[in-house]
């Protein structure tokens, strides 16, 4: 299984604070590189804003309009959506940058290590529950377990199913993101590993174009998965924010 060595973490600079290991691994380096890349890109694009946008500023405005209209206002509504734009935009750009950095050969994709999507899914889970409690109180939290169109004697059956779905939604967010990234990169690594396994370079003639096509498909999948993560988090927050019966 030494082909899948790309998926192992290697410590580059060991740092240890009070017994907790926060050393610099290749995951950290990839995450910093992704953040620095997108930060410089956005700063360069939005450098001198004018009222009538030039070509560079129009790109940033397109991105922001996409986040505002398609991601937030569609799912949460115009009035409440104002305060959720930074969170949903941040989640979208963070997941997009971390997915895309893995396409450069030799780097590590942060989102395929289970820790990174678990953290994001836990953030969304806690935000949904806390928003529910803040807006509707503890009674509101119990009311989500009892949808309106159900006769009262069926609550015994429906309530556990609702509790399971309350836990399963962020879990599915995490599994979807991690497994999509893991599967894409595994296919490419296994294809290259076939050349090493059969120990003949003639096998490279059909395999390299196929791996190139898989890489292009990975670009598409990275963008789609970032969009899906942001849209689903916005949908769950929108469900928690809407007034209930």
């Amino acid at each position, binding site marked *: 299984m030494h082909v899948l060595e790309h998926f192992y973490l290697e410590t580059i600079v060991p740092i240890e604070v009070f017994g907790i290991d926060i050393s610099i691994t290749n995951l950290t380096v990839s995450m910093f590189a992704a953040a620095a890349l997108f930060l410089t890109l956005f700063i360069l694009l939005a450098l001198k804003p004018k009222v009538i946008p030039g070509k560079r500023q129009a790109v940033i405005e397109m991105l922001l309009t996409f986040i505002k209209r398609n991601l937030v206002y569609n799912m949460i509504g115009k009035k409440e959506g104002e305060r959720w734009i930074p969170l949903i935009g941040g989640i979208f750009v963070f997941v997009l940058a971390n997915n895309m950095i893995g396409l450069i050969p030799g780097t590590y994709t942060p989102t395929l290590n289970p820790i990174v999507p678990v953290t994001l899914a836990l953030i969304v889970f806690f935000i949904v529950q806390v928003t529910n409690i803040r807006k509707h109180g503890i009674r509101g939290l119990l009311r989500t377990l009892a949808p309106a169109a159900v006769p009262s004697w069926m609550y015994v059956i429906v309530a556990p199913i609702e509790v399971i779905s309350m836990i399963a939604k962020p879990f599915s967010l995490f599994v979807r993101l991690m497994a*999509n990234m893991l599967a894409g990169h595994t296919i490419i690594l296994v294809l290259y590993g076939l050349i090493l396994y059969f120990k003949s370079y003639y096998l490279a003639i059909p395999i390299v174009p196929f791996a190139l096509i898989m890489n292009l498909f990975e670009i598409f999948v990275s963008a789609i*998965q970032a969009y899906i993560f942001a849209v689903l988090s916005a949908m769950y927050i929108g469900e928690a924010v809407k007034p209930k019966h």
Partner: protein
Amino acid sequence: MDPKTAAMIAAGFTMGIGAIGPAIGIGNLVGKALEGIARQPEAAGQIQTAMFIGIAFAEAIALYALVVAFLLIFVA
């Protein structure tokens, strides 16, 4: 048959059978979305958005099967 071999065979069956359902589901979904766009081309943007969200939900089930297959190969 030692457990390692059985785990490998089980992983193959898991991913093979587990990909049938989501494939049928996604095919149905995209077909209905295409019908909707053909009936009313002005709503193509909204239909496309809803189609992508539906595809993500259906694909998540296939990825649960993939995760189980990975667990069988590498951990058992």
